[in-house]
Structure formats: C-alpha cells, structure tokens
C-alpha cells in the first residue's frame, strides 16, 4: 500500500503490520483472582517504507511506540507479529551469523550519552572491538581505522585513549556515531540522538549527522520528539500515535499542511520561536490514553475535536491523501486537501 508514493524505488526497509505487545507480570493476587494478564500494546500495526538514502523522521509523544519501533528495526526487540523486510528479506527471525550480517548493515545510536558507552573501555577499545569482531580491518589497519573514524566524527586528536567520562555529552554522542559507523552500515537508526544534549550542542551533532549522511550515502531513521529538528533533517516524516502511524509524507508538505488532526495538534503545541503566534488555549486537550487500554475505532477519537460516530466504530486505514498518507476518515475535510 505504502508503495504508492515511491512506485519507482524499492524500499530499503519495508515494515508491514507490525505489532508489539508486552505482557505485564501478574501479581499473585491477580493470578488468584483470575484476572487476565495486562497487555501493553506498544505497536499496533505499523506499516512503513524506508527508502534508500533518505532520512525518515519518526515523531510522536513518549509512550507512542517510536522507540519500540526503532528497537524492533535494530533487532533488539522481536515484534509479536508482522514483518520487517530489509532489501526484500525478512529479518525478524535472523540468528547467529545472519543476524550479525544484518546488524552490520543496520546500526543504532542511542539517546543517553551517559549509559550508551561502556565506562570501563577507552574509545579505542570500544572501536577496536567492533572492528575486530566483524573483521573490518586487520593488524595495523585497525588503529588506522580508529583514527579515521574519530576524524570522521570530528573528535580531537588524543581522544582515542580517553574514557567516556572524560568527554562532554555531545562528544559522547559522536563516539556513539563512530561506533555505529565502524561497521560501515547502510542504515542508521538514531533514537533521540540529541534530545539529552544542550541546545547549543544539538546543532553540532545534527550537522554532523547531515554531513555524514550525504558523504556516506546513509539511510537514516531519525526518531525524535523535537518537531523542529525532525522537520529540519528529514526528507519524509511519519507521525506515530499509540503505536500506529497516523500520517506519513514529505517533510515540508506534512509540516506546512498536516492532514491528520493529531499532526495538526502536535505542530500547534510545539513551542515556536514566533512570539506573535501566541495562543491562549492549549492546542490539544486531554491526555494520551494508556497503552494498556487502547480505545476502539480511531485511537485518537477520545481527544479529537472532529471525532464523529464513525471514528468510534471503525479504525481508519492509512490511505493516500494529498502528498502523503493519512489514517483519518475525514482527512480531506480536516486537512483541506
């Protein structure tokens, strides 16, 4: 279905009807009372194509499933059902050497600069390990490659023999990028790569990512909650709500003319730097429903100002509207397309 936008190209990653459910542990009293296990639905049927060499932004609020999606793609979580295809081949059940082969192509970068590096290993140890385990280089080539990688992410000379705690947050994220690049991947999954950094440092890391992507021809999944950054770096953007994509489309089109009421509210709520655009009323009332109990029909209907009876009954499918795809029964009227 999603192919309709990119009929010409075949997607690098094709995600189909992906579900991820976590069962919560039952307490003893729950078991005795015969209460059913509570199930957290983190992903609720995600359909998404990632095109080669594009940056696909994935935005949503906390608990919407965007990180779970990133971790499923990187192979850290095994989805409950559905499929992820990389260059046409399913990657969900890969084991051993084939799993390693896939992860060599698809690497991940993490949010927390303080826990994503092993504190007892120098930068050189960290990079050497990745290079040697995958036999990317031999002998003296290994250390040459370490220097090359550090150069690539603009870390100063002498950084190689320092430990993570000797670096600032921004520098640590660069080390994380270098580690991911050490396997010479095709695709990078960046899970909130800059959100833990100071604003003045975020731009450095974002610039680096943009440059690396262009020079190395990488495909990037940029998972973030900061709409300004997502808009800036992404070719296309997917908006995710309660574990499902509600809208996906070219970045500029989506941001200048969002079709789904949730995308509209998200954009309106995001703090803008324009003091004249002040509002007195909040952009969206109510709160995110619990992922333990996802509303029937359209998951957004409980907060949606346009909700009609149909929205309570029937879950809208992701369908072409305007420049992209939207999962809303009334996208044409609401988005004005």
């Amino acid at each position, binding site marked *: 279905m999603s192919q309709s936008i990119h009929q010409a190209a075949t997607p690098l990653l094709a995600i189909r009807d992906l579900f991820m459910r976590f069962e919560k542990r039952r307490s003893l009293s729950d078991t005795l009372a015969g209460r059913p296990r509570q199930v957290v639905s983190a992903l609720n049927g995600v359909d998404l194509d990632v095109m080669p060499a594009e940056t696909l932004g994935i935005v949503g609020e906390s608990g919407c499933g965007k990180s779970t999606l990133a*971790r499923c793609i*990187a*192979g*850290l979580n095994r989805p409950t059902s559905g499929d992820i295809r990389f260059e046409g081949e399913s990657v969900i059940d890969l084991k051993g050497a084939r*799993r*390693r082969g896939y*992860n*060599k192509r698809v*690497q*991940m970068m*993490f*949010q*927390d600069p*303080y*826990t*994503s*590096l*092993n*504190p*007892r*290993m*120098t930068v*050189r*140890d960290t990079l050497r*390990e*990745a290079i040697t*385990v*995958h036999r990317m280089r031999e002998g*003296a080539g290994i*250390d040459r490659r370490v*220097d090359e990688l550090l150069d690539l992410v603009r870390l100063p000379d002498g950084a*190689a*023999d320092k430990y993570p*705690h000797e670096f600032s947050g921004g520098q640590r994220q660069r080390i*994380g990028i270098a*580690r991911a690049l050490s*396997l010479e991947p095709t695709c990078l999954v960046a899970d909130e790569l800059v959100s833990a950094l100071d604003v003045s440092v975020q731009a450095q890391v974002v610039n680096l990512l943009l440059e690396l992507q262009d020079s190395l021809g990488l495909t990037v999944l940029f998972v973030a909650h900061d709409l300004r950054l997502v808009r800036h770096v992404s070719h296309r953007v997917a908006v995710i709500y309660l574990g499902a994509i509600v809208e996906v489309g070219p970045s500029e089109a989506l941001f200048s003319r969002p079709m789904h009421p949730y995308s509209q509210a998200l954009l309106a709520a995001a703090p803008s730097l324009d003091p004249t655009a002040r509002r007195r009323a909040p952009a969206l009332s109510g709160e995110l429903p619990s992922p333990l109990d996802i509303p029937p029909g359209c998951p957004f209907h409980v907060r949606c100002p346009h909700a009609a009876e149909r929205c309570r009954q029937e879950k809208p499918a992701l369908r072409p509207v305007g420049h992209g795809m939207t999962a809303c029964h009334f996208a044409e009227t609401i988005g004005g397309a």
Partner: protein
Amino acid sequence: MSIVLQSPSRKASRVNAFIGRAFSRPSFVIGFAILALSIALALFPQLLAPYDPLAFDLSAIQQGPSLAHPFGTDNFGRDVLSRVIWAYRVDMQMAFFATIFALLIGVTVGAFVGYYGGIADTIFGRCVDAIITFPFLVLVIAIVAVLGPGLINMYVAITAVNWVYYARLTRAEIMAQKSNDYAAAGRVLGYSDRRIIFRHLLPNAISPIIVYWMTDMALAILLGSSLGYLGLGAQPPAAEWGVLIAEGRNFLLTAWWMSLMPGIAIVLTGLGFSLVGDALADLLRPKGR
C-alpha cells in the same frame, strides 16, 4: 607505531593513579598493612615464629606473657605466639579457599541468570530462597556433619552454601548493568552473549562483588575458627585460631592468654579485610557523570 603503544601506557598510568588514591586513605593504608603482614606470616611462619609450634616444653607450662614468650605458653608449654603465627597459614588459607570457589561459581551463575532471566532465573530464585531460609552456620554444620570434619570438607560445605550469596549479588548487578544502552549497543553490534556478559557487563558489575569478597573473607575466618572451635574444621594439634581458643577455654581464668591472643589475631585480620573492603568500595565507585 607510537599510537599503538599509547593505550597500555595510559592504562598503566591510570592504575598508578588508582594506587596513589588508595594509599592516600588512612583506612586503606592500615588495612593493607595488616593484610600484608598477615600474608607474610602465612607464607613464612618458619622464619618469623620464634619456636616450634608443636614442641612441648614441660618446664614452661602455662606461663604468662614474658620476654621469652610474649604471648605466654599453653598447657603443654608450647609457645602461644608461635602457634598464633603458624595458625596464620591455616586461617589465611581458609579465608581464601572457603570463598574463592563460591565467588567463581556464584559470579558465573549469577551473570548468566541475570543476563538471560526467564525460567533459569525463576528456578534460581527458588533455589536461593530454599538455601537462605536456613541459618548459614546451621546449614554448614549439617553438611560438615554429613561429610565428616576436616578442612577440605569444610571448604566444600561453605562453598555449597556461600555461592548463593555471590550469585544473588552478581545477578542484581548484571541486571542493573543490562538495562544500560551500552549492552543494547553490544547486541546491535552483533557481539556474542558471552562477550557482552564477560567483557562488558561483568567488569562494570564486579566492584561490589570484590568488596563483598573482602568482607566475606573476614567472615570465612570467623566461620572457620568457629568450626575449628567446635572440632569440625581444622583438627588439633594443627594450629588454627579456633582450635587454639578451644584449647584455652578450660583455662580462661588461669591462662587467659591462651584464648585471648588467637582471638586478637582473628579480630585484627578481620579488621584488615574490612578496612580494605571499605576503602575499595569507595575507590571503585564509578566516577560521576
């Protein structure tokens, strides 16, 4: 080439810095001095003990501390100082052998169940519950009673119970470390589980285990001496502190030094382990963010 050499030298300088920091702490210095002396006594009792610990001297029975016998003599005229010194060999061995196998087994088991979780973890949890419901000493005594007294059997008995404590500690530490993103990064980088557990998680989880090991060695000496006292550990006439105290128990009023001197040795050695353990706990704490 120089770049290749840089890494080890930098590591060496960090080790030096660590040692420097350790020795700037009085508690570590005192503890280290006590342990160094204890180890020296355990290794070379023949050089340091003034008399043969087993030689009877019936002309000097139960003499109080004097210049000739600083710790006095026992009811067979044996020199108590020499017996306490020779006992270092047995007791320091006890500290090591009663704990090291528990440490190795416990850390390995704890690391695996902590990393994999699931059914193995549940079964492990039940085992732990079963073992720790019994008082430690009672369980050890029961096992020794079945195996028969003696040092080796005592090691087996203590290890059989003690590994659980190491495993429990390791499991908790590994589970905490596992939630860090560097573990996830290792998986995405395609590293094997063994590599992630032993090269990444364990080095970050090991500090509290080492600290616990230090205090546990002190406890092992106490436990070993208790068993020696009860006649279940080291066997007389071998010099062992618990055995020595037991030998003196009938003469507490007339020849108090027979029990007191080995008692002081126990306390002092225990203190040494505790001080070093405490200092290490502070020193090994990872530096702030």
